[in-house]
């Protein structure tokens, strides 16, 4: 057998171009489904892990997938906001911790997640530099945001403008980087965290005042006896500084300030069940269990994946057939060689052995290459889950 193996190996090595092409075809046909399968498995695991860690999400009635994806992965949401008083009302119950979430703004394309210190504690976010963002106008950055933007504690970050046509408001808020969190491999790495009060400044609900004296007249919209309205359009950004921080206040009832959603962390499973029933029965809010929602979502995704698996299977089958044709043609071309070997005294099935072993060699090398390529792809791809 080793002699035939040697001949098979030498034949494959002598026909490098053909052998390389065959290996490449098989490797590619294997790499695609293997990588897709591994990625799908990773996604499944990571998405479920994130959902499993979160007991309940509460938000405005509507699309529960929307609410779950917004609260877990900071995806843009079309849902209505929830007034802050709902959080205070639910918090009175005492057995559940409610964490506010506000995700209506971005900074350099990264979601600004306005929340409370309980979120950071719940997700186990630890500063690797600086500290948590506890003050108005401060932000703490997820690891990937800090890396991508090259920011450290003490640096500034501007929010992205949203109200281009409201000239009474500055288009952006200049925020101070208070800290950077350690990487977690979750969507938290791709977020900009701040206190929920900073979001209300972004909303324009809270603002500060500057001294009226010394303002450029070209910025003045109107003057009254005791106030001056200044155009925000001509100011590059608003900023909370040590000097003006004390002037920041809210207009209107703070209980009505908007939230995108709330996380609910019950003390026990029973408390969670009771809360969910009570909230859904009341009807003005909805409570969803992320695990169930993500399972539903992944079910749909994996049904689609099954279709692509089928396509991948056809691809693999087609490749196998084409490779077989190549080897079949090769065996035809080697008729004289095989006859020679037969006459020299090779075993009867030397032809099949030679072709078969060469095919096995090609498969093994292709498999190894595909495996290596899959591993490399998985390592080199950006962490798609944290940027989901």
């Amino acid at each position, binding site marked *: 057998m080793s*002699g035939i193996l040697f001949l098979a190996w*030498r034949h494959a090595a*002598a026909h490098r171009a053909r052998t390389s092409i065959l290996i490449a075809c098989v490797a590619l046909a294997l790499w695609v489904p293997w990588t897709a399968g591994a990625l799908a498995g990773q996604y499944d695991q990571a998405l479920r892990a994130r959902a499993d860690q979160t007991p309940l999400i509460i938000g405005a009635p509507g699309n529960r997938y929307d609410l779950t994806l917004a609260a877990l992965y900071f995806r843009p949401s079309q849902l209505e906001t929830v007034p802050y008083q709902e959080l205070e009302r639910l918090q009175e119950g005492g057995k559940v911790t409610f964490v506010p979430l506000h995700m209506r703004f971005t900074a350099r394309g990264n979601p600004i997640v306005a929340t409370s210190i309980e979120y950071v504690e719940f997700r186990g976010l630890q500063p690797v530099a600086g500290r948590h963002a506890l003050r108005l106008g401060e932000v703490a950055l997820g690891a990937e945001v800090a890396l991508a933007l090259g920011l450290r504690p003490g640096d500034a970050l501007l929010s992205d403008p949203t109200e281009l046509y409201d000239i009474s408001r500055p288009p952006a808020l200049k925020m101070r980087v208070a800290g950077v969190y350690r990487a977690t491999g979750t969507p938290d790495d791709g977020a900009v965290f701040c206190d929920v009060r900073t979001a209300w400044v972004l909303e324009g609900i809270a603002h500060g005042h500057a001294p009226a004296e010394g303002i450029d007249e070209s910025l003045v919209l109107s003057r009254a006896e005791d106030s001056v309205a200044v155009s925000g359009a001509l100011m590059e950004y608003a900023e909370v500084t040590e000097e003006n921080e004390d002037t920041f206040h809210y207009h209107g009832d703070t209980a009505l300030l908007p939230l995108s959603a709330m996380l609910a962390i019950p003390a026990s499973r029973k408390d969670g069940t009771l809360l969910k029933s009570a909230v859904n029965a009341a009807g003005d809010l909805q409570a969803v269990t992320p695990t169930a929602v993500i399972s539903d979502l992944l079910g749909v995704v994996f049904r689609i994946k099954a279709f692509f698996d089928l396509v991948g299977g056809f691809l693999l089958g087609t490749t196998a057939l084409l490779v077989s044709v190549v080897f079949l043609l090769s065996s035809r071309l080697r008729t004289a060689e095989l006859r020679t*070997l037969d006459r*020299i*005294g090779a075993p*009867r099935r*030397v032809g099949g052995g030679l072709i078969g072993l060469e095919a096995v060699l090609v498969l093994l090398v292709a498999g190894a290459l595909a495996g290596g390529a899959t591993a490399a792809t998985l390592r080199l791809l950006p962490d798609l889950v944290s940027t989901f």
Partner: protein
Amino acid sequence: MTSESAAGTLLRGVSFSYAPSAGSRPFRLDVEELALRAGEAAAVIGPSGSGKTTLVHLCAGILVPSSGEISVGGVRLDRLTDAERRRERARQVGLVFQEFELLDYLNALENILVPLRVRGASRGELRAGRTRATELAEAVGIADLLGRTPARLSQGERQRVAIARALVTEPALVLCDEPTGNLDPDAASGAVDLILHEARARSAALLMVTHDHGLLDRFDRVIDVTTLAGAGGKAR
């Protein structure tokens, strides 16, 4: 088995026939007796289609007679199974083909060692085989060409590789089917001398099919295949 061919080749009462195609007249070869001693060289002549190649294939065990006995190196080929015959062929018979039939993806040394590889030689046997191959290569004058593939060898060099391949297993019988058919006269003469010399040096019986009557005087015996049915080959 006669005492003359105790360690050589013997065909006795061999009868072989086959129909080349449906409806055609069957071909038949009968050999009353043909014996070759170890180290004896015989040339086989006869018109085209008379059965020269068939005779070679019968001696190699490639074809199986319908009756009679064929012994090579003391082994009755007619009594073996196909697999056993193949093994014996790889061990006991060296073949030199008209077209040389080297494997184009192996170098000269690897081509010489093919008979050892196809019979599944062990590492030790391969090691010994390499030594013999090197010696054979020196003997036939291609010692410095062992790393070249057939595409980079001349006709004459390829034939020497084929000769070395036929002898590397130290066979009891060397069979050559018109090995000089593609060579010019000078090269043909040199090739025949080389084969004869190396076979005799290794005490291998030699049976060579040839159309070149100018070379017949170099053989110990000339066998006219058309006369095999009646009597053995006549010694010159």
